[in-house]
């Protein structure tokens, strides 16, 4: 009897999706038709999604590291990343390299931007932790979350202000709030063609560089957390702060270090997004940040490998949604995924489900 009820329930849900889905772009017959007509564009979108997902994963790591260690949803992290991309844009502008600059000049500009943007974000994140979150460490759980929302607003406003400094940084353009174009500094040599593969798919050195940098950062972080003394101290603090303290770990320092690493990753991601998408805007911290947070939750928040997996999944899903559903609805679908995961599997894909006990 129960089985029948479930079967009917599933049928009703499927019928409703088929009926109402097309309104939000989820028109399955059309989508299958498009995929059958050009499988190459599916592969293309998968590639775009993986590269974007790798960047999202780096930001997601910042959320997951902080959540892992002090159980705080660091709302300001997305906006920190936005400030990183503004810093990168400023540095690149100061070097005066534009589209099609010489490789040496571009490399120098990009490396300086990476250094400065990562330092800025790391420094800001540590300061934020010191002055906005640390005083609240013993307060109720909601207090630091609200504080983080406040910091996020402060960062958004800083971005708006920064974007309006056209008199000092001409690269910011005339209008403070409008999207700024980021110079296209990465070489665009078609990798597949160079390898002699004939396919109607664009995968250039630009994609490859972004992907490689992202993977190197993630692997580096993983090795750091797993195999160094500091990484061990981080894991110990995450597991039990009191016990870690008793074992002689300076918990405050370790938490500051976590924010430092998360911030540096955000800064790097800020540069990568600028280089890859060639446009930055002060509101992107919120939208990209929420995607990254969704990725962290999808993978299992607090879990580093989970954040990477979640990032790539979210990147691929949003690329597919942009192509096959409708880019206008992508945000809604991403948030729908977030809601569904939190409701049905709050532990995420790789996390354990923690049951609340007395």
């Amino acid at each position, binding site marked *: 009897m129960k089985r029948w009820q479930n079967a009917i329930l599933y049928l009703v849900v499927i019928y409703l999706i088929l009926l109402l889905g097309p309104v939000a772009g989820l028109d399955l*017959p059309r989508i299958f038709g498009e995929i059958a007509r050009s499988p190459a564009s599916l592969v293309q979108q998968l590639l775009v999604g993986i590269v974007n997902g790798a960047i999202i994963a780096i930001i997601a790591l910042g959320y997951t590291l902080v959540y892992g260690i002090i*159980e705080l949803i660091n709302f300001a992290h997305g906006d920190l990343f936005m400030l990183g991309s503004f810093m990168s844009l400023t540095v690149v502008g100061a070097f005066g390299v534009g589209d099609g600059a010489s490789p040496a000049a571009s490399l120098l500009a990009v490396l300086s931007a990476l250094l400065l943007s990562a330092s800025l974000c790391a420094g800001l994140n540590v300061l934020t932790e010191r002055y906005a979150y640390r005083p609240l460490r013993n307060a109720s759980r909601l207090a630091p979350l*609200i504080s983080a929302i406040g910091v996020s607003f402060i960062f958004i406003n800083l971005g708006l202000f920064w974007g309006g400094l056209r008199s000092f940084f001409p690269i910011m353009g005339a209008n403070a709030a409008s999207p700024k174009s980021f110079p296209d500094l990465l070489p665009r040599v078609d990798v597949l063609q160079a390898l002699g593969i004939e396919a109607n798919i664009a995968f250039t050195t630009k994609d490859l560089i972004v992907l490689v940098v992202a993977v190197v950062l993630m692997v580096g972080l993983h090795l750091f957390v797993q195999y160094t003394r500091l990484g061990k101290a981080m894991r110990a603090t995450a597991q039990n702060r009191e016990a870690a303290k008793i074992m002689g770990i300076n918990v405050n320092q370790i938490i500051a270090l976590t924010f430092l690493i998360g911030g540096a990753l955000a800064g790097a991601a800020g540069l990568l997004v600028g280089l890859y998408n060639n446009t930055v805007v002060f509101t992107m911290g919120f939208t990209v940040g929420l995607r990254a947070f969704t990725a962290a939750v999808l993978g299992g928040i607090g879990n580093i490998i989970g954040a990477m997996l979640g990032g790539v999944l979210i990147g691929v899903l949003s690329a597919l949604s942009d192509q096959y559903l409708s880019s206008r609805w992508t945000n*809604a679908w991403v948030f729908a995924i*977030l809601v569904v995961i939190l409701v049905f599997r709050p532990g995420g894909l790789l996390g354990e489900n923690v049951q609340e006990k007395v």
Partner: protein
Amino acid sequence: MTQQAMKSGNILAAIAALTVLLFGGWSGAVIGWLLGAAAGLMACQGKKIPSPKTGIRLGSNAGLALGIWILIASLIQGLVLFPATGQSSLGVIQGLLFGGVGLVVATFAGWLMGALQGLGSKRQQATRAFLAVILITFPLIDQIARTNWTATVIQILIFALLALGLNIVVGYAGLLDLGYAAFFAIGAYTTGFLSSPQINLEWNFWLVIWIAAAVAALAGVILGAPTLRLRGDYLAIVTLGFGEIVPVVFRNLTQIQIYEPISRIFASLLGRPELAICLVGCDRPFNLTGGEAGINPIGRPTLPLIGTFQSGQYLPWYYLILLLVVFSVLMIGRLRDSRLGRAWSAIREDELAASAMGINLVQTKLLAFAMGATFSGFAGAFYGAYISAIFPSVFDFSVSVIVLCMVILGGLGNMTGVLLGCTIIMAADRLYLPQLAQVLKSILNTLVLPNVANPALRDFLATSIDPIQMRLFLFGLTLVVMMIVRPEGLVPNAERQAELRSPDEESLAEVRSQ
């Protein structure tokens, strides 16, 4: 206690002086009238006032102190600031006149409030009656003094409704809702659908406002249901997700075409697409929400003697929203003291204990969401009719956070505090910041810019010094500072204060989560 009163008195004086400096003219008299009464009330707060005489002494002293500040500010405004911005000097006489009237009015308001405090057992009723008189006469005084603040006060009251509703969810039931603007949007769009040419329904506003509240409440239940099992911060994120999805949906429901799926599959299998049964938007895609352009125009309320409310005439709108707010305050006060209200505070304190005591968690939480959403449904309906047009961009995340900011600034779970927080934030945002921007701009243009030679610096000063663009920064700073300095808000709720200040809250939380 006296020290506290002095401190609040200084804050009032600073606000009054700032108002006079920024707005000038008769604003001193209006602010003197409002704050003089507040100063009189504060001076008598928590004291035994044996006779009206004592109250008059305390109240008129407080009002006088406030009035002196208004006079000084008025003189500075007339003699220094006004000429500095390129306008001709008002002269000592006019400065004295504006300031003097302000002083007299402030003293009188303090005197009156003080006298009412001495009425013994009728003290509270008398204070309420005076407050009611102030609120009812406000637009008239505003018109006489030509300060043009009524439009802003209407906005303040709309947000007061939102803040009161959110206070139920966050303050009473302890469920952090970051997507509250969604219900505001749902209320407003319901009004838009039912009383505009968009889908050819032009129902009466007095009916629609109740439907909007009911739809918002239903949405509260629907969106609240999946979140019931979640812990504090996860709940916050899910509500945030809903808060983001709702505007996207309203933004994008512009080309709806729905086919019956089974017939459509058969039609495509047969290769005859015209066989698919079309349900909605057959001839051309159906535009439900108007997309980015929104819904426009929305029907306005009509009353027998007044006729249809017009957009430029603020009086009827003011009294309508005032009525809504007063009605909500009374209703929420009753709710808070009811069985349900006590169940809310029980689940806020400890869910498990509450459920062990026989409280139905599902029902109680859903009712919190529904009741909270109801009031934003009212606010949305009023907003839609008042602006007569709605756009999806009005209901984004920042609205949810600003309303949350009001609740937290004022004091979670305390209606007086929430109303105060709402007034402070909205007045700062809609009244003081724009005026400050204007004054700064004219000072910059007349005094500073002509003397700056460096073109880059000039451009920077002309474009980047804009207080209006700093509003998010100020909201954020308010949240951060409040959380550190006074997490319980300006007018705290006693239980909530103990909860937020308790040093072993962490161990408590840990005990709960293990």
